[in-house]
């Protein structure tokens, strides 16, 4: 197993470090010899496992590309399975921080996992790069050791709403999404921008995360000219099947989880014509993305989606931050500062940088599902450049308003 291999390497590294210390090598030599420990909190068992496994594949793809070396330091990679439960996440975060003494943590996947450990991470001062949505982690409740190189829940929904109102000319939209923070925040962001652009949200439907049958919820969709869905995991598949089976033809718009490229192989024709906005798109034409996609197809035989790309980019940010900090990660504050000042020109999702909350500023892509040679693909229609979590809003005003929630912005009657 890969893990055993890296462990042995770590032992060898430590032995070298000890030897170096004993023989009084100059101090930098010790720093060079110590491996950089990169931890990953992901979900490899349970219902969230599909995305979680892609996360690990994304990191490993990046590490392989760099031959497990960041800024001249060997990288030891430790992956931990949280099981998708907050208590499990806490235990595994403790394992990574207290037992493995990692220099940085990638993950976790879900917002509730992130919320369970944010205070702990702040206490332990370990840099953490996650793709979980929870808005307030980079807004009203910021954590100085946290970075989000993917997107906040609503970051992709602002441009999606702009596109839906201005280019698709939708007027009356019904939103449907899971009844938890990620869904609330996505739909809130959509509503805010959509209504400012002249549209109106006529109804908001909230099925629970685990819904055996969407028929009763789909039955409530009527009297509108478009639907915005914010489902995650494998729920978009089941929702769209029910939606198509009910004979509904309104155009569907969605965010990064609802139209993820990794889902396309499981979709049928019911997904044709669905619009999505995502911080990563499979057809992005730059070298770094071509390299990434080719490696993923070669090693795992799959098209990467948002989860794999998100973690690939996160690993690239850690690499770049370490280089900026001259390969040093002992001073956590200096290291996290270097991470936040990273400005990458060439990643599979294009250029990215971070705002002063540690949230990404980058390109967002509007795509439509089409059929090419009998295979479903997301075709990019428009790119919004340099989108921040605040969209076009004033930061102070945005933060003074409550966080997007089930009832905010309220439904206009």
């Amino acid at each position: 197993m890969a893990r055993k291999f890296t462990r042995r390497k770590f032992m060898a590294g430590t032995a070298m470090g000890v030897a170096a210390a004993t023989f009084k090598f100059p101090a930098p030599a010790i720093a060079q010899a110590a491996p950089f420990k990169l931890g990953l909190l992901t979900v490899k068992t349970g219902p969230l496992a599909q995305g979680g496994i892609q996360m690990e594949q994304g990191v490993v793809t990046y590490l392989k590309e760099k031959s497990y070396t960041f800024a001249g330091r060997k990288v030891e990679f430790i992956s931990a399975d949280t099981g998708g439960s907050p208590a499990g996440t806490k235990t595994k975060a403790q394992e990574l921080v207290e037992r493995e003494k990692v220099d940085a943590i990638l993950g976790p996947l879900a917002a509730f996992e992130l919320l369970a450990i944010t205070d702990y991470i702040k206490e332990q001062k370990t840099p953490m790069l996650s793709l979980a949505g929870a808005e307030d982690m980079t807004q009203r409740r910021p954590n100085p050791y946290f970075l989000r190189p993917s997107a906040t829940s609503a970051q992709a929904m602002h441009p999606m709403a702009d596109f839906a109102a201005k280019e698709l000319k939708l007027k009356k939209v019904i939103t449907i999404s899971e009844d938890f923070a990620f869904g609330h925040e996505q739909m809130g962001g959509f509503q805010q921008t959509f209504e400012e652009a002249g549209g109106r949200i006529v109804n908001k439907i909230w099925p629970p995360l685990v819904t055996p049958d969407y028929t009763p919820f789909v039955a409530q969709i009527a009297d509108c000219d478009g639907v915005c869905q914010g489902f995650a995991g494998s729920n978009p598949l089941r929702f769209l099947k029910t939606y198509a089976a009910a004979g509904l033809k309104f155009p569907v718009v969605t965010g990064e989880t609802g139209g993820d490229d990794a889902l396309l192989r499981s979709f049928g024709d019911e997904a044709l014509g669905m619009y999505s906005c995502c911080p990563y798109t499979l057809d992005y034409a730059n070298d770094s993305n071509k390299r990434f996609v080719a490696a993923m197809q070669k090693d795992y035989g799959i098209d990467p989606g948002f989860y794999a790309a998100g973690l690939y980019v996160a690993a690239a940010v850690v690499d770049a931050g370490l280089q900026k900090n001259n390969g040093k990660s002992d001073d956590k504050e200096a290291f996290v500062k270097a991470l936040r000042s990273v400005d990458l020109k060439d990643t599979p999702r294009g250029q990215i940088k971070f705002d002063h909350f540690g949230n990404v500023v980058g390109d967002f892509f509007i795509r439509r599902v089409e059929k090419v040679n009998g295979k479903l693909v997301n075709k990019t229609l428009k790119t919004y450049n340099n989108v921040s979590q605040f969209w076009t809003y004033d930061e102070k005003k945005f933060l003074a308003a409550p966080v997007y929630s089930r009832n905010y912005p309220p439904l206009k009657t």
Partner: protein
Amino acid sequence: MSARNLAIALAFLALVTLPFWMPGIYYINVGSQILFYAIFALGLNVLVGYAGLVSLGHAGLFGVAAYATGYMLQLGYGHTEAILVALVIGVASMALYAVLSLRSTGIGFIMITLALGEILWGLAYRWISLTGGDNGINVPTRPAPFGYSLTVPTTFYYVTLIIFVASVVLSAVFVNSPFGASLMGTRDQPRRMNALGYHVWMIRFYACLFSGLLTALSGILFVYYTQFISPQTLSLTSSAEVLLMVISGGPGTLLGPIVGAGLVVVVKNVVSGFIERWNFLLGAIFVAIVILMPEGLVPGTARLWRLAFRKRAKPVKTETPS
């Protein structure tokens, strides 16, 4: 029985000195987890082992106490108030559970507790204004009794250990008291107990309350340990997990649930770091226990011990519970 006492004394000594010989904070934290899960398992064992009532809804009670603590703290109350209210709410919920589910025994009891547990899970999940739904409740601080801050892992461990030892002593007193004997009587011969003039329902009801008290205690320790509570904690999986701790260790014994809690926590948290398919391993261990030691790890080991060392002695009266 001196071997047993020696083993217990050694184990106790090991627990008291654990922070000194464990290689790091991480393992001390695992130790704390084993201890509060052991209290939880002891609480369930009162019903499963001594009263013969299998509950599949105990995670609901565990979660109620945890949520009560979190919610009280969120309202701005101090730790003392939060803990006391959580204990009262935990025991009161158990009383409600008992009133509803003690109408039957056997499969009926299992199904009613299962349903009640699922109702509590559903409330935690959907009553968003109270529980925060999937986002859960954060508990930002741990209490600091007598100036010792529980934020320090070692202090937290010792406080958990004290509560754990108190729970074990309390359970031992409970089981060995005349009341404990009458409870086991209702387990083995409810009709005869009834004929002898015992109020079977009332005895079971009191046993439920005691079980609820231990469960609430462990729930409070849990929420202070993770500093976070969300609906997953109340799910059926959690109820099944604690039931497995009791069954694998040996129901109807005091040590069994403790050993079972240790086994499950270690496999779940420590071994899972080395073996990706730890669920499978846990399953395999349980299958092995069921085949080799159907009475549980602790009574099973004791039986093997007797077989190995006391073969030529007079046959010992076995008192394995049914």
